[in-house]
C-alpha cells in the first residue's frame, strides 16, 4: 500500500488512527503492530510471514546473545553470524539471485551451453530496509550498545512499524526503543505530523509524479534518437523526481510516525544545495549513509587505517551501497561513480574543497550528482553511456515531439526552487522544525498544508477518472 493512495488516505489511515486512539492505551503497541502487519500484508500477504518468522528468530537469538557471559565472545559471534546469515541470505536470495543467475546464464551463453532453468524470485517490498534495521539491532546487541528487548511484540513493532517499513528511514533500535515503551501523544505532535504528512503528500503527488512522467517519456526514447536538449531535460527531470519522490516519502514517514507519537530521524536535508559530493551524502538518505558508516566503513577500519586504505574503503562502501539500491550493473556503476568522487574529495582534502567559492562548488556538485543519476535511471550500462554521450555530443536527429502539459512546466520550476533553496531558508520559514515557532508559521503551515492536501487528493482522484463521452460499442 502506498502512502499516496486513496485507499491508504481514506481507508487504512483513518481506520488505524480510530482503533489506535479509541482503544485502551495499553493496546496501542499491539494495534500499531497489527496495523503495520496488515499494511505490509496488503500488497504481499505471503511475505508478511517472512517478516514475522525472521523477526521472531532475531528476537530469540538476540536474547540468547545477551544471556551469554561477557567472555563468551566466540559463541556470541557465532549467534550473530547465524542471524546475519539468514537475514542477508534472505536479502541475497530475494533481491540478487535473479541477477546472478542472469549473469551466470550470460556466461553459459558465451561458453555455448544452455541456460540454467530458473523461476524468477519475487522481491518482498521493503526487504532492503528492514534487513538493515534488523542488522543494526543484532550488531548493537552483539556490541553491547543496545539491550535486547524482552518483548517480542516490541521487536516486531520496531521492524514492521508501517511508516518506515517500506522505504525507511533506517532507524536503529536504540533510537526507537524508548519510544516504543513510552511516548507522548500530544496535540502539537499530532498536528505537526499532519503538517509533515501533507507536505510529503504534496511533494510526491503534485511534484514528483508529473515530473516523473516527463522523465519516463524521455528515457523511453532510444538514446540514439534523442536530441541533446531533451536529454538534458530528461535527466534534470529525473534528478528532481527522485529527490521529490524519496524525500516526500520520508516526509510522509516522519509525519505518520508523529500521528501516533513516534519521532523519526530526518532522512533528507536539502541535498541539492550541497557544495561537495561528501556533503551531498551527508544530506541525501542520511539514515543509509549513517548505516554504511557505522556497520561497514568503521568495521573495515574506518579512519584508523592508512590513507590509501581509507580511500579504497570509502570507494568500496559506496560500491556496496550502489548494489544495495538494486541488483543491476547500473547501480554498481552508480555506487562506484559516487565512491570515486567521495574518495577524490578525501584525497584533495575537505578543507580545501570548503574553500572553493559556493558559486562554483554548488553547480559542479549538482552537475556531478545529476550525471550520476543517468546510471541510476538507465536500464543497462550501455544505455547509460549512450545517454551520457547524448548529453554532450549532439546528433543530427529531429527534436523529440514531447507533449509536456503546461502545468508540468510550472511544477518543474517549483520543484527546482524547493530543491535548490538552502536549508537556512526553510528553517526561517519554520517548515522543517517540529513545531511552528510563531503564529505566522502556524497559520502558514495550516494554509499550505490544507492546500497541498486538497490538491494532492484532487490529483489522485482525477488520475483514476478517465471518462468517455459515450460508450460506443
Amino acid at each position: 500500500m502506498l502512502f499516496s493512495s486513496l485507499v491508504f488516505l481514506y481507508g487504512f489511515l483513518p481506520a488505524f488512527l480510530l482503533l489506535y486512539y479509541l482503544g485502551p492505551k495499553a493496546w496501542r503497541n499491539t494495534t500499531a503492530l497489527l496495523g503495520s502487519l496488515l499494511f505490509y500484508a496488503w500488497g504481499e500477504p505471503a511475505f508478511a510471514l517472512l517478516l514475522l518468522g525472521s523477526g521472531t528468530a532475531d528476537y530469540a537469538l538476540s536474547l540468547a546473545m545477551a544471556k551469554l557471559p561477557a567472555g563468551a565472545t566466540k559463541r556470541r559471534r557465532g549467534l550473530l553470524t547465524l542471524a546475519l546469515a539468514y537475514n542477508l541470505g534472505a536479502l541475497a536470495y530475494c533481491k540478487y539471485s535473479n541477477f546472478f543467475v542472469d549473469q551466470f546464464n550470460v556466461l553459459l551463453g558465451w561458453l555455448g551451453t544452455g541456460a540454467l532453468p530458473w523461476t524468477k524470485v519475487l522481491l518482498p517490498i521493503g526487504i532492503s530496509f528492514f534487513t538493515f534495521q534488523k542488522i543494526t539491532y543484532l550488531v548493537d546487541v552483539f556490541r553491547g550498545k543496545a539491550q535486547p528487548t524482552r518483548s517480542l511484540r516490541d521487536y516486531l513493532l520496531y521492524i514492521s512499524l508501517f511508516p518506515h517499513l517500506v522505504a525507511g528511514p533506517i532507524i536503529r533500535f536504540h533510537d526507537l526503543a524508548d519510544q516504543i515503551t513510552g511516548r507522548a501523544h500530544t496535540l502539537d505532535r499530532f498536528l505537526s505530523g499532519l503538517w509533515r504528512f501533507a507536505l510529503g503528500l504534496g511533494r510526491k503527488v503534485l511534484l514528483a509524479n508529473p515530473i516523473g512522467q516527463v522523465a519516463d517519456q524521455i528515457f523511453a526514447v532510444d538514446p540514439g534518437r534523442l536530441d541533446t536538449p531533451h536529454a538534458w531535460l530528461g535527466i534534470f527531470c529525473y534528478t528532481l523526481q527522485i529527490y521529490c519522490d524519496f524525500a516526500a516519502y520520508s516526509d510522509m514517514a516522519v509525519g505518520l510516525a508523529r500521528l501516533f507519537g513516534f519521532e523519526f530521524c530526518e532522512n533528507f536535508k536539502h541535498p541539492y544545495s550541497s557544495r561537495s559530493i561528501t556533503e551531498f551524502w551527508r544530506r541525501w538518505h542520511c539514515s543509509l549513509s549513517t548505516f554504511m558508516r557505522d556497520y561497514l566503513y568503521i568495521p573495515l577500519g574506518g579512519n584508523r587505517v592508512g590513507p590509501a586504505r581509507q580511500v579504497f574503503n570509502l570507494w568500496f562502501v559506496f560500491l556496496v551501497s550502489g548494489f544495495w539500491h538494486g541488483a543491476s550493473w547500473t547501480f554498481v556503476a552508480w555506487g562506484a561513480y559516487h565512491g570515486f568522487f567521495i574518495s577524490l574529495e578525501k584525497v584533495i582534502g575537505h578543507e580545501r574543497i570548503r574553500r572553493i567559492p559556493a558559486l562554483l562548488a554548488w553547480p559542479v556538485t549538482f552537475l556531478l550528482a545529476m550525471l550520476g543519476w543517468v546510471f541510476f535511471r538507465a536500464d543497462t550500462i550501455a544505455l547509460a553511456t549512450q545517454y551520457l554521450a547524448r548529453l554532450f555530443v549532439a546528433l543530427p536527429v529531429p527534436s523529440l515531439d514531447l507533449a509536456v502539459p503546461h502545468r508540468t512546466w510550472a511544477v518543474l520550476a517549483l520543484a527546482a526552487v524547493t530543491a535548490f533553496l538552502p536549508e537556512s531558508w526553510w528553517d526561517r520559514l519554520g517548515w522543517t522544525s517540529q513545531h511552528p515557532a510563531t503564529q505566522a508559521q502556524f497559520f502558514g503551515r495550516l494554509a499550505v498544508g490544507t492546500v497541498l492536501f486538497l490538491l494532492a487528493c484532487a490529483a489522485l482522484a482525477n488520475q483514476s477518472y478517465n471518462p468517455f463521452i459515450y460508450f460506443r460499442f
Partner: protein
Amino acid sequence: MPPRNDNRRLKIALLAAVAIFWGAVVVDTFLSLPNILPKLKGATTPPPAPEWSLAALRSGKTMQAVAAWFDAHIGLRSFWVRLDNQIDYAVFGQLVKRGDGTRLIHSPGGWFFEKQYLDFAISKSLVAEDEYRRRIERMRRVEEKLARRGIPLLYVVAPSKVEVYPEHVPAELFRKGRPEQTTTGYEVASPLLRNSGLSYIDGPARYSRWKQEGVPDLFARSGTHWSYQSALRVWEEIRASLNPRLKHPIPAFAELPSRPGRPRGNDRDLLDLANLLWARPYEHMLPKPVLRAQQEVPESQLPRILWVHDSFGWVLIEQLYDAKAGRPSDSLYYFATQMKIPGGVATDTKIAEIDWPTFLRDYDAVVLVWTEIAFEFDGCGFYEALDKALD
C-alpha cells in the same frame, strides 16, 4: 516565541475540522452523502468487484481490486476531479487527458473539440476507392431491397465539427497536415456517393454551404454534435427526402420563440465532459429551439422510423419526439444496442439474432445517421447484415 499551547482551542478546532472533513470523505465513500456538486459527466467502466477467495487474497489480487474500487468510489469524487480539472483549465489553459478516455481539445473563445475528429481530419483514407465502390454498391442494393418492401432508406452523413470549423482548432495540433491537405475516407467516397443514385444527405457539404451563407452556431462551441439549432435544418432535408416516399409523412416542426441562453444538453456535452468546478465563464450563449408538440396529426398517422445511428442521431430523435412527429420506435445505436425511443432504454435484443424480414415489417422508414469520420465503418455491419438477410 509564544508558548506552544497558548492557542489550544484553535488547535482543537483545527483537529476537529480535519476529522470532520476526513470523516465526510470516508462516509461518502461507503454510504454516499447527498450530492453537493453534479455527478461527473462521461461514461466510465466500473472496476471489477474484489474477489474474496483465499487464492486471490494470497496473490494480492483482492487488495488491488479493493484499491481500484476505492479510487472509483472515493468520497467527494466529483469535487476532487473538478478541482483538479479547474486548475488545469483555468490556471494552465489545458485539459489534460488521463488514461484512455475521450481526449478534449479546446481553444480560445470556449471552442471544444474531440481529438478523434482532429485525427480523422488529418489522416488519409485507410480504405481504397475500389473498396468504397463495392460498399456503395451494397448500400444501393440494400436500399432497393428495402424499397421493394415499401420501406424507404435514408442515409444522413453528419459533419465533423473539426471539418466545419477548422479555424478554431489550435494551429499547433495540425502537425501532420491541415484538413485541406488531406483526403479523408469520406472525401474519397463522396464523389462515388454522389454518382451512385443512393438516397443520402451530404451533411458535410450542406454545413459547408450554410457556413458560407453565414448561418451561426452550426455547432455549439461547447458541443461535439450539430447544434439543436442546425439540426432543425437537417430535419428539413430529411423531410424533403423522405416524405414523398412515406405513407405517413413526417409533419413539419413548429418552433416556439426562444432566446439565446446557456448551452444545454447536446450543445454542451464537451464542456460537461471537462468536469469543471466552475464552467460558467466558458459557456457561449446560443438559442436552443423549443418545439411545439403537434396536435394536428393523430399518432396512428405518424411514421414509425427505425434509427440506425451514432451519437449524432440522438439530437434528431430528441427533436422528432419533442415535436410529437413520430410514433414510438427503436434505435439501433451503433448497430450494437437496441433501444426503445423515446427514452433510450436498452433492450436485451441481440442484433446478430434479429430476423430482419419480420423485424422490419412494422417500420415506415429506416434512417441511418453516421458521422463522416465513421464512414469507413460501413454502418457497423448494418448493410452487410441486411444485404444477406433480405431477398
